[in-house]
């Protein structure tokens, strides 16, 4: 799949996943790469950018199994942005599916 296309959708995926619960970096990357074939290292730059834009914050939490983990927590601004992206995506996919399904569309 086209890499730029994936990157755009990746932003939506990260926000959608984080709306459900807080994730630590590795866990989030695994959750996404399990479903989408992408270089895992490209998720971290995206996380950093979205954090700088105020869509989520981070906190460090000790874990029982080992060293501390950096968790990502979505902000209200992030939730709003996720809604916008999700509705954009839904109407985009609906439009594409219409075009694919109907050969008479010019």
């Amino acid at each position, binding site marked *: 799949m086209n890499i730029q296309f994936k990157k755009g959708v990746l932003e939506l995926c990260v926000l959608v996943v984080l709306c459900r619960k807080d994730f630590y970096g590795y866990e989030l990357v695994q959750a996404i790469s399990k479903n989408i074939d992408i*270089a*895992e290292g490209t998720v971290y*730059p995206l996380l950093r950018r979205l954090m700088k834009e105020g869509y989520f914050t981070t906190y460090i939490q000790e874990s029982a199994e080992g060293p501390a983990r950096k968790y990502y927590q979505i902000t209200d601004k992030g939730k709003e942005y996720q809604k916008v992206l999700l509705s954009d995506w839904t109407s985009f996919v609906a439009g594409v599916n219409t075009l694919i399904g109907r050969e008479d569309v010019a």
Partner: protein
Amino acid sequence: MTKDRFLADLKHALGGMTETERREVLYDYEEHFRMGLAEGKPEEQIARSLGNPRVIGKSYAIDALLEESREGGGVTAASVLRAVFASISLTFFNIIFILGPFLGLVGVMIGLWAAAVSLGLAGVAVFLSPLAALITPRYVTLAGMNPAFLLFAGIGVAGLGVLAVLGMWKLSGLFGQVIAAYVRFNTRIVTRRK
């Protein structure tokens, strides 16, 4: 690729960042490796799944550039323009303030060389003038002077000419070195990253 290799390559690709930012970014990947290793994955496999550290480094650089341009008044890629203008103005500066004096100095060097060589040639001419007087008496105006004086004067002037040429030889070498040093210095400035 090993963990150390990956982190070193990434660190290198993040060269333009501040030390604090670079540490923050590297921390994420160190943590990623730590957790992958804890799951029992080999370093090689974790690094492969992450992708090319140089490409990853570039995406941080692009984000930083875009962020900077947003802060700088909302013009997209303003910082790129700023960088281009910076290098153009440096070139412009070179043309006006360096090329001018440089050409002036080259002119002075040519003039000094011409003076030194003509001094030597004049000496030889004076030295030979008594002989010339013997061959074509009518055309040599110095023929009226004492031939012995002309011979010695000619040797003296030619000697001065030789000294002047030797002096110019040294001066030219020095001139070349100064120009070379300047060019090196300038190239460093132009190619150096912030």
